């Protein structure tokens, strides 16, 4: 087990550093906050939705690399999805980290599999999932 390859692999660091989906959306259709107080992770999610489709999704706030990478991957994966599709991806992502499910994402979002290594570091799982749990709340409330 090598944490540099599991936790701090290139693709995670890239997603962590990416500013593409960072920042607020003015007049967002949905907005929610999520925090892991004991870790110092504190995020906001913004969704603009049109005709039941997530047109744009961004995050803002402070979090560790795993948390931010998880948030950026989420934004990438859920853009252009319907709520139904989005919930499916969330379920698959959480299943990968919380249960024994082998991930089997569409090619377009296969980057999500990069987070599988987090599973070996139980305390970091909640970092990886912060954005995902937050969006799940939004999607379920909106149903």
């Amino acid at each position, binding site marked *: 087990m090598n944490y540099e390859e599991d936790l701090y692999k290139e693709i995670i660091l890239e997603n962590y550093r990416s500013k593409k989906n960072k920042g607020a959306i003015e007049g967002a259709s949905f907005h929610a906050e999520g925090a892991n107080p004991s870790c*110092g992770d504190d995020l906001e999610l913004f969704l603009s939705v049109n005709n039941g489709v997530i047109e744009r999704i961004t995050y803002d706030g402070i979090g560790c690399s795993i948390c931010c990478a998880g948030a950026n991957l989420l934004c990438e994966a859920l853009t252009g999805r319907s709520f139904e599709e989005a919930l499916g991806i969330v379920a698959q992502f959480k299943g990968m980290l919380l249960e024994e499910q082998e991930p089997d994402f569409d090619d377009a979002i296969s980057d999500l599999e990069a987070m599988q290594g987090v599973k070996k570091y139980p305390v970091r799982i909640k970092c990886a999932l912060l954005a995902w749990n937050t969006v799940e709340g939004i999607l379920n409330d909106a149903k």
Partner: protein
Amino acid sequence: MRSSVSVDKTLTRSGLDIAKIREDFPNLGRSMRGKSFVYLDNGATSLKPRQVIESEVRYYEEYCANIHRGVYEFSEIATEEYDSIRAKVAHFIGAPADGHVIFTRGTTESVNVVMNGWGRKNIGAGDVILISEIEHHANYVTWQQLAQEKGARLEFIPALPDGSFDLNNLDALFDMPVKFVAVTAMSNVTGYKPDLKTIIDTAHRHGVPVLVDAAQYASHHTVNVAELDCDFLCFSGHKMCGPTGIGVLYGRESLLEEMDPFMYGGDMVVRVKRDTSSFKPLPERFEAGTPNIAGVMGLGAAVDYLQGIGMEAIAEHEQHLIEYTLMRAAEFPDLISYGPADHSSRGAIFSFNLGDVHSHDVGSILDQEGIAVRTGFHCAQPIMRLFGIPGTVRASMYLYNDIDDIDMLFTGLDKVRGIFNR
């Protein structure tokens, strides 16, 4: 691996034989994540020497009994031990009498005993409770909640950007209707040690009592409550080589005497009538129920252990460590360290951030290298607001740490930069 050519490093200026001290701590022989274990989270809790663990085991195995209750030999021994440790602790902090030392679960309970017993009785609407923004939540939230309950106001000793106090206009603060002062003896974030004497003397000139949170201070320094002239002093056993679940509240006799008990129950009453009871004198009045007897035994052994080594030598050794740490930190241009630049007002706590790497990542990588530090806001959100940051990485040292530990910390930080600068 711990280097073996470190003789000159472990025999520090203070003359302590750190290598020998390390042998007393079973944890230090262990490895974490497959690396040899470096413990730099002493601000959270200290490791325990064999002597302390053994004293608890001895109580359980040899004369396990409740105190103050039995007519038989083992209960007598337990009671005598318990009472003699109270005397030992009183002596350790320079308390004028044993009865002024009350055993609690820890600093948090100690502060709450005073908030409930003195605060609820004496603080009312419009009164001011003077604390500071560098307090631990135990000594912040407790007074904040009392203020809310009573309609009193929380005010702060002014803090400079480095988290130290500006005491120039201290006297003027007492133009406000200040009823109580609660202040830390050493910040658990920066290691800053305020000039307590000035604060206490000023408060007393205005007739205001002062509580000192010595959770971080008492484990590393000689304390003398008589000289300091504080009204209350709170500390925890688990941060000073002692067991979890035991702490101390020292109180000035006249104030303790007027306080309501925090809890009611057995061992604190003299006579129970239908509708009224009369309470025992100090300190029993504040120790309802079966106390943490084994914890007291362990605390006694911890005091013996620390005194055997010498509090002055410990403080000097740690001064050496923090100076070395800050010197090494200066090599890292992207390292931001918090706390006053003046070493002499600081204990051995090193809080920092590395560039824009989140503290959780730093801590996590150090963990993988076998190094235990703490990250986040350290139960001290107000000082984080003061610094304008969400958290820090904190390396906090104790008597068994040596220069090697600090070097390994910086080697770990090199690793962090390596990963994040790829």
